[in-house]
């Protein structure tokens, strides 16, 4: 990690730690804006930090680690993509705190003559958002829908993970004249590909943060909890389970690191999409193991609301269901690999 990135991390972590886990969204958002965390998503000529993808994922990881309510995956991916669409005004507004939210899960919206109809899942923080960045199912159009657009219905249902506020957007024959089109055709396809890849990587980063924090908390519990006259951490049966979790998590972290190195070169191509799918599918798998084992290793206290364990558990489990198809990419990864073998083998 470069000195600049270390400095960035060291400036983010204490702020999130001081605010505490699942801290109030309003004050967290003001700090994030003031401290320029959103600027990691833009290049220098757009007024951003220009530190690249690694700096964005670092912000996401830190937010995961402190189970922050900040809608960082959505905010960072949107700023990046709007920046790549040369939408300077929106990028500036968003870095100054305007939230244009995007769906964190599947969306299915179709264009029919001059209207848009369909739905998008898991839009974060719609109360705070002023507009929504959406795309058609065939990726041929990327556009911003204002919150007050006629035909737009937002349905908010609380999730078990209280650090997220997710809503469904239903579009019912929204007239194209009320939306702002960012890109169409090939340009739209490139930008949506970028957006989805970025979303996978940022979700993987958030998940890695959650998993690390939960594993640390679990180890700490085992070190201080005494039964049979000794710390639980001294039992080899528990040591080996924890060592396996640490090893799996190191795998997910390393894959994410390698993926970032690959993606820094090009975010929009197919290799990038597959690499991001691998990173997010592994991160969510590992984090769900850590969530399951983490609760068990905490024993009774893990079932109590007063303990932080459940915040991580719920966020980890929700993260496993975000992204395309709930991050369940194993079949896609295999299909693409099988096809690449056929091409190579002739």
């Amino acid at each position, binding site marked *: 990690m470069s000195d600049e990135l270390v400095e960035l991390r060291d400036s983010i972590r204490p702020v999130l730690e001081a605010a505490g886990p699942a801290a109030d969204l309003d004050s967290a958002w003001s700090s994030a804006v003031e401290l320029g965390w959103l600027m990691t998503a833009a290049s220098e000529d757009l007024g951003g930090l220009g530190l690249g993808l690694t700096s964005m994922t670092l912000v996401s990881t830190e937010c995961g680690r402190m189970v922050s309510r900040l809608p960082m995956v959505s905010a960072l991916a949107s700023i990046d993509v709007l920046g790549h669409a040369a939408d300077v005004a929106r990028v500036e507004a968003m870095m100054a705190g305007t939230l244009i939210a995007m769906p964190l899960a599947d969306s299915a919206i179709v264009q029919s003559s001059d209207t848009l109809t369909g739905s998008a899942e898991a839009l974060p923080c719609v109360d705070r958002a002023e507009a929504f960045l959406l795309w058609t199912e065939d990726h041929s159009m990327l556009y911003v829908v204002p919150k007050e657009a006629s035909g737009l219905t937002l349905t908010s249902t609380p999730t078990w993970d209280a650090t997220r506020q997710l809503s469904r957007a239903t579009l019912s024959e929204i007239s194209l004249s009320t939306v702002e089109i960012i890109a169409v055709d090939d340009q739209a396809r490139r930008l949506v590909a970028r957006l989805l890849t970025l979303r996978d990587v940022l979700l993987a980063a958030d998940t890695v943060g959650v998993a690390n924090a939960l594993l640390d908390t679990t*180890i700490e519990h*085992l*070190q201080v909890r005494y039964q049979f006259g*000794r*710390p639980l*951490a*001294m039992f*080899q049966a*528990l*040591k*080996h389970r*924890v*060592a*396996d979790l*640490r*090893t*799996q998590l*190191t*795998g*997910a*972290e*390393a*894959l994410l*690191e*390698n*993926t970032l*190195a*690959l993606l820094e070169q090009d975010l929009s191509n197919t*290799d990038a999409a597959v*690499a991001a799918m*691998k990173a997010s*599918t*592994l991160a969510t*798998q590992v984090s769900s193991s850590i969530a399951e084992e983490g609760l068990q290793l905490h024993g009774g206290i893990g079932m109590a609301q007063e303990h932080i364990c459940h915040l991580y558990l719920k966020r980890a489990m929700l993260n496993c269901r975000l992204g395309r198809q709930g991050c369940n*990419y*194993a*079949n*896609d*990864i*295999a*299909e693409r*690999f*099988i096809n*690449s*073998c056929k091409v*190579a*083998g*002739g």
Partner: protein
Amino acid sequence: MVRRLKQWESFALTELPMNEPAGNNDGLRAQVRHWLTDNVPAGWRQAMTGVDQAAFVAAQKEWFFKLSGAGFATPHWPAEWPGGGRSLAEQKIIYEEIARADAPRLILYFVSLYHAACTIMECGTSAQHEKYLPKILAGEVWCQGFSEPNAGSDLASLKTRAERKSDRYVINGQKIWSTMGQYADRCLLLARSGNSGPPQAGLTYFLLDMKAKGVSVRPIHQITGDDEFAEIFFDDVEVPIEERVGEEGAGWAVAQATLASERGLTLVELSQRMRYALPMLVSAMESSGVINDGALKAELGELITRVDAACAVADQYLLKRISGREAVGDASIVKLYYSRTLRAFTSLGLKIGGLDAQYLTPHMRGATQETGAWMLDFMNSYNWTIAGGSDEVQRNIIAERMLGMQREPRNWLFEG
């Protein structure tokens, strides 16, 4: 009943993207790739299938001299030696290319080039440097004499005796699991020279001549039908004091140098080999008629991801070493991640292979654990979960030394 093996030959290697930091080594990569294209023995897998071990040893010697002649066998040696003076980043490239070219592994020479050479360089006298290193370069085969029947994971409890008698030591005892011990010229021997203090304190390290009087070797017949390992028996074997490395009683520290000599490069190579072998699973799915099985596809997708992660773990570990940020336990994670992934790889192969994989196929030698004879590969994958510090030992190291989980008190001993 013997069936022909065909998986490996039936597909072309897929080009996979290399994840590496900003490439300033493109020249070396191209050079190594070019040389390997011209020099890897064509059809070596076929040639090594169904042959006896003597033929395998001959082929290993030939490949060693080719590789060392080109300067790619000793990249980790200091610059004053032929082929030496390569940085870790350069060594990584060489091993990645060896994996990519599917070159034979230098199994016969691994202990001599890494364990023996690094131990002698780090802990040996200048006389020992002059005596042994040129011989290693000239193709001397070494084996390791550490484990004993009753000292495996608990290596420090070993009992082979080294008794000092004027200018020599007399060795009595038994070693086990010495890779290629039956072909070795010399042995890195760890023996007990004293009984006072903690068990580690009484050990002394020797460079023993395998042709000395009183040494006898017996190959171990493995469950795979191969015999890559040997037992070594020492019956009043005399070792001159000049063949001792380090002081008497300092053997444990010297042994640590031996064990640290691989520097993560082996697992860079092996995880890349596993990655390049992934198309074998696709090929096996095709020949077993299960290429459209959704459940198997999902398993394949998960495995591909894990194999990529194993490569990434080895990559990131090496980057840490290069920048001097290696922490205690990191190496254990690399090994544990690789060993578990290899088990998953071979288990999936075995599942895909179905009943066909249960029929005997001619043995392919020197092909690591990815031969496409899935039952063989499955059994061989245990080499990595047991040898070189078992998974259980690695988990202890990770939990206790890296994560700070409390150790059990030393005095909890079972009297038995």
